């Protein structure tokens, strides 16, 4: 338990809570967004929201890979999985995400589709090696944390000449989504949610470093603190943001120095640059079409691109009209604001993607905090 217990010390947490209370200006309100779903989960799991000053609100961001995947892309994966001769490999959470008409990868599997749950991208390569007669497709989703493993899988398959392996690529980029949230959906100045500071993602930043966030401090005046995932990490990062706001500063600060280097991980970044190319635009659930926010396979690896190998019609599928996952993902609404929350939509029978992954704000609120009624008045 080395490296975890040190960051879960109750008395240190109380000390940080007291420092937060002393630092918070009682005459103003603060709203900080934790971008990453892992941070959302940690805030709920450890009951940290109770340790924050009453006038400091955490806004949950879109950093949950399963949550931001648009239904149309999921429909593509389900259709592909149902084709004879195709084995679709996916990470666990995505299997339960509801698509249209109650379909999901899990239900497709129950109906006979060959869907494999994997925990590592290289498992898909191994499967392609073992089953040369089948088309093995990796349904790749996630932010920069899961992107290098996909790149590695593609390079390995290319090196082995595995012609039956391909990737249905849905990898998305954190800074582009942050920019969309800070700039607003219609361009600068239409920001829906007043965010006074950003808790930057920990794992993503181990790959991309902290430099990509500089623009948010410089051009948007938004303080950033990149944080680890332990309770004390988060409390400390929130305190760093609070101090910046009170001092009228906006800078990128690194709380998670034990894992993150400002310049990121060169090996991983080079690997990504070799294997992927930037898409002009990509649809995000909740954020809509975001320019230069996602990756596709580079020309050199076009043969491994499932979108080019299979004829996959692009489906535009509307979310359930009553579901407000989109607003939740932009930080414009809290889970209990949704009429479906904990009534029609529960983790057992999720209607929206935010109720599926443990990193989704709705699932976290349901599992850990549904004793809270609708949220108190939003920040001014």
């Amino acid at each position: 338990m080395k490296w975890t217990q040190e960051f879960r010390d109750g008395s240190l947490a109380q000390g940080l809570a007291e420092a937060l209370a002393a630092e918070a200006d009682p005459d103003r309100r603060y709203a900080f967004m934790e971008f990453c779903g892992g941070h959302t989960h940690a805030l709920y799991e450890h009951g940290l929201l109770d340790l924050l000053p009453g006038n400091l609100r955490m806004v949950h961001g879109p950093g949950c890979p399963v949550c931001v995947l648009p239904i149309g892309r999921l429909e593509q994966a389900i259709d592909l999985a149902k084709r004879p001769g195709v084995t679709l490999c996916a990470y666990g959470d995505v299997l339960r995400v509801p698509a249209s008409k109650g379909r999901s990868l899990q239900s497709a599997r129950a109906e006979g589709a060959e869907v494999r749950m994997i925990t590592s991208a290289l498992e898909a390569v191994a499967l392609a090696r073992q089953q040369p007669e089948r088309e093995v497709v990796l349904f790749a989703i996630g932010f920069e944390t899961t992107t290098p493993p996909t790149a590695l899988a593609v390079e390995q398959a290319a090196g082995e000449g595995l012609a039956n392996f391909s990737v249905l690529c849905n990898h998305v980029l954190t800074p582009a989504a942050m920019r969309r949230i800070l700039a607003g959906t219609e361009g600068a100045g239409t920001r829906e949610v007043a965010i006074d500071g950003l808790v930057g993602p920990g794992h993503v930043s181990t790959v991309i470093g902290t430099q990509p966030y500089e623009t948010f401090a410089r051009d948007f005046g938004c303080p950033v603190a990149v944080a680890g995932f332990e309770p004390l990490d988060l409390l400390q990062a929130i305190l760093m943001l609070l101090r910046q706001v009170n001092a009228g500063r906006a800078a990128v600060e690194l709380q998670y120095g034990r894992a993150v280097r400002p310049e990121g991980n060169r090996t991983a970044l080079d690997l990504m640059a070799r294997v992927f190319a930037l898409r002009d635009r990509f649809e995000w659930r909740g954020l809509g079409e975001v320019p230069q926010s996602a990756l596709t396979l580079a020309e050199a690896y076009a043969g491994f691109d499932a979108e080019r190998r299979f004829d996959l019609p692009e489906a535009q599928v509307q979310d359930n009209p009553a579901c407000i996952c989109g607003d939740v993902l932009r930080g414009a609404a809290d889970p209990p604001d949704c009429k479906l929350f904990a009534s029609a939509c529960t983790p057992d029978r999720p209607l929206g993607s935010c109720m599926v992954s443990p990193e989704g704000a709705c699932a976290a609120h349901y599992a850990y905090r549904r004793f809270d009624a609708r949220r108190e008045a939003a920040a001014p």
Partner: protein
Amino acid sequence: MSVGGRLDLKHGRVDMTHGGGGRAMARLIDGVFRDAFANPRLAAGNDAAAFDWPGGRTVMTTDSYVVSPLAFPGGDIGALAVNGTVNDLATAGAVPVYLSAGFVLEEGLPLAALCGYVHSMARAAEAAGVEIVTGDTKVVERGKADGLYINTAGIGRVPDGVGPSCDRARPGDKLLVSGPLGDHGVAILSARADLALDAGIVSDTAALNGLVAEMVAAAPDVRVLRDLTRGGLAAACNELAQASGVGMTLDQAALPVRREVAAACEVLGLDPVHVANEGRLLAIAAPGDADALLAAMRAHPLGREAALVGEVTDDDRRLVEMRTAFGGRRLVDWLNGEQLPRIC
């Protein structure tokens, strides 16, 4: 009764004739089961065991065991099949008396392995003070089962004045657990070949009737007893909160969890309150009984690490909450979906 012919218990394997109702099946029953479970009721050789039964409150239960792998650190399917059913009787406040045992064998199962599990059952039954008095054997084709499945049913007597029940928890009552949480689940995980995990943890599988006897002697009016199996403490608390129409609050800092189990859970993204146990129980007692009950638990070898972990609250939403180690609040919800298939 004895049937001639040799059963090669060293190198032989279960084949379809062992379930065919003929001589081979008789040999198997004779050579494997009857010897191991030796008792007069089974030895009588009837399809149904006959016994006299004094009046009074009687409880009966049944459970099927499909654990994978069949043997794991600290136990095997045989021990589990006895202890699990004994514990269902014991947590009804009963003294377990007789068990039945039904076996579904897969063609190809080595007879030596079968003998091992059957003797493990016999040892567990002896330790728990119960007799296996009737049974059944079926064989299915290779590929139609995973080695061996066991069903056991049990019957027990409840002493006068004892009546724990899942609907008797009342606001203010205290919650006690009999020992560290999650040992069984982590032991099974570490025995799975696909998870390269060596936590050095052994299953807690044990018969709890001895512990329960001491507990009801110290606090006959103990409100609720529940053995903590699949879904762990979280599932038990939620089930009991629903049944009793109350809420509960657990104290995270008071929950006994071994360091190794906590570390394994951390790596695997599990919460120890959701992880399965096979030799732990949750007791709910009136505030005035809690101290005596805790003392009785700690005086028994299977309750040495017992702890007071929370209390029952008045909450018509029937939510189970936890005070976190940081002084915050969170819910302790049911597990969503499946954490680990075939844990018992």
